[in-house]
């Protein structure tokens, strides 16, 4: 299930008064997009398209789908902004492109990725214990924190960079914007 409404989003009407994003300052817009594009195509920051076949032996694409679907709910439960959700999924895919993981640890990777994405993006990231609780205490704090360190090493601490969400901004049509958000979230699955 993908949500029918987009995740918490900046008050759209307000930012639409002028066509540009209030936080993206005009002199840098072209520099920024050029830089984002460069990051986006950098192979070292991209997941493999076929890692499920190539790298993994114990998981399949369905399991990934179930995990992402569940993370959407977690993001909703803790009121996380949608950038955090998109970052989480990106960390998961980049991690799984480099490390084989048993299916038992897939959910652990999911919560630890979301913990990291929250620390990167949120003003008040949820605590480690919130992420344990949401897994019905399947994993303890030590395991979540260990996996976090594992992800940081695999990703070489490179947590920024563009996701689909980064490019979803400037529209003047609310309906169109919401449709874009919906499609972007569908594309996570």
């Amino acid at each position, binding site marked *: 299930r993908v949500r029918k409404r987009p995740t918490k989003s900046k008050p759209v009407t307000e930012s639409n008064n002028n066509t540009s994003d209030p936080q993206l*300052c005009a002199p840098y817009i072209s520099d920024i997009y050029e*830089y984002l594009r460069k990051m986006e195509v950098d192979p070292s920051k991209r997941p493999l398209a076929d890692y499920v076949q190539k790298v993994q032996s114990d998981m399949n694409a369905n399991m990934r789908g179930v995990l992402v679907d569940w993370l959407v709910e977690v993001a909703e439960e803790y009121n996380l902004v*949608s*950038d955090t959700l998109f970052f989480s999924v990106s960390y998961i895919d980049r991690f799984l492109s480099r490390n084989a993981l048993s299916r038992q640890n897939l959910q652990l990777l999911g919560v630890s990725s979301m913990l990291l994405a929250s620390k990167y993006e949120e*003003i008040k990231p949820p605590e*480690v214990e919130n992420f344990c609780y949401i897994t019905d205490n399947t994993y303890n704090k030590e395991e979540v*924190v260990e996996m*976090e360190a594992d992800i940081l090493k695999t990703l070489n601490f490179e947590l920024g960079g563009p996701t689909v969400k980064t490019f979803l901004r400037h529209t003047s049509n609310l309906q169109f914007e919401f449709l874009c958000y919906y499609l972007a979230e569908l594309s996570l699955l």
Partner: protein
Amino acid sequence: MAEEIDDIDYTDNLFMRLLQCTLCGQNNRFNYEGFSYKILQTIEEGIYGRVYRCRHSATGDIVAIKQIKFDDEKIGVPSSVVREVSLLRALQHVNIVSLLKVLTKETYVNLVFEPLDQDLSHYIRDNRGVQDPSIRKSFLRQILVGVAYCHAHKILHRDLKPKNIWIDNSRMIIKIADFGLAREFGGDMLLTRYPPNRYYRAPEVFLHCQHYSSGIDLWSVGCIFGEMVIGRPILGDTCDELDAIFRMLGTPSEENWPGITQFPLFGSYAIYNPMDLSTVFSGLEPEGLELLKMLLCLDPKRRISAETALKHAYFKD
């Protein structure tokens, strides 16, 4: 860069890997895979931990190591470290301190930086400002180049102050450091209200404007520029910085800051006329004074950007 991370065998269990990665041993040494860093000097002590000047036992390289302690290992890596390291990974520029290595352990992390000599606050204190006009100009230009680079990479520093700006003494090169409060801008996030340090905090932040942007860094640069001229923080000792800002620059009105009256907090401030800045910052060239005024423009929308500031007449020669 960051070779130590790739050298690690991912089939080991995590705990053993962390142990291999860094062992902080006795005798003031950071051990690293058999090699170690000898601590030569403590450069700085802060609430987060310490900055040491160290020499590598094998290569003899001098580095600066910032050791950040975690309050509680069960929270994992603090978000300030997560941001600082991942943002510095994205920033490689001569005017931004370069991060050479990250050595993690369970309760602290060591960030290994290129060597740092002294920060601008020490320089200002020891020399009562930056009196040589050409050095002052060069420092300001380098700070602006570094800030423009950050902004073009979608990163706000949010804590620019003389203490976070380092000087490579031998070549007089400026290095912007301390990205613990930095973050990407342009997301959905409303930004937190209270960075940076009060003396360098932009008026829109005092007024609780949540959509602040790159302008807050430029305001801080303006404050630093002024401090280089007069040798002390431009606002001086005050418990109400916004009042002090208005005393110096004049209380804004709808005319020079459209929308100012919409801020609920604004109504409580007295109306001041602007001071004559050429007396406040006597000794500054007229072009410099003009640029300073553009950096200390109250309305963030009209404040000069780093990119544009670099094209200012002050830097013509």
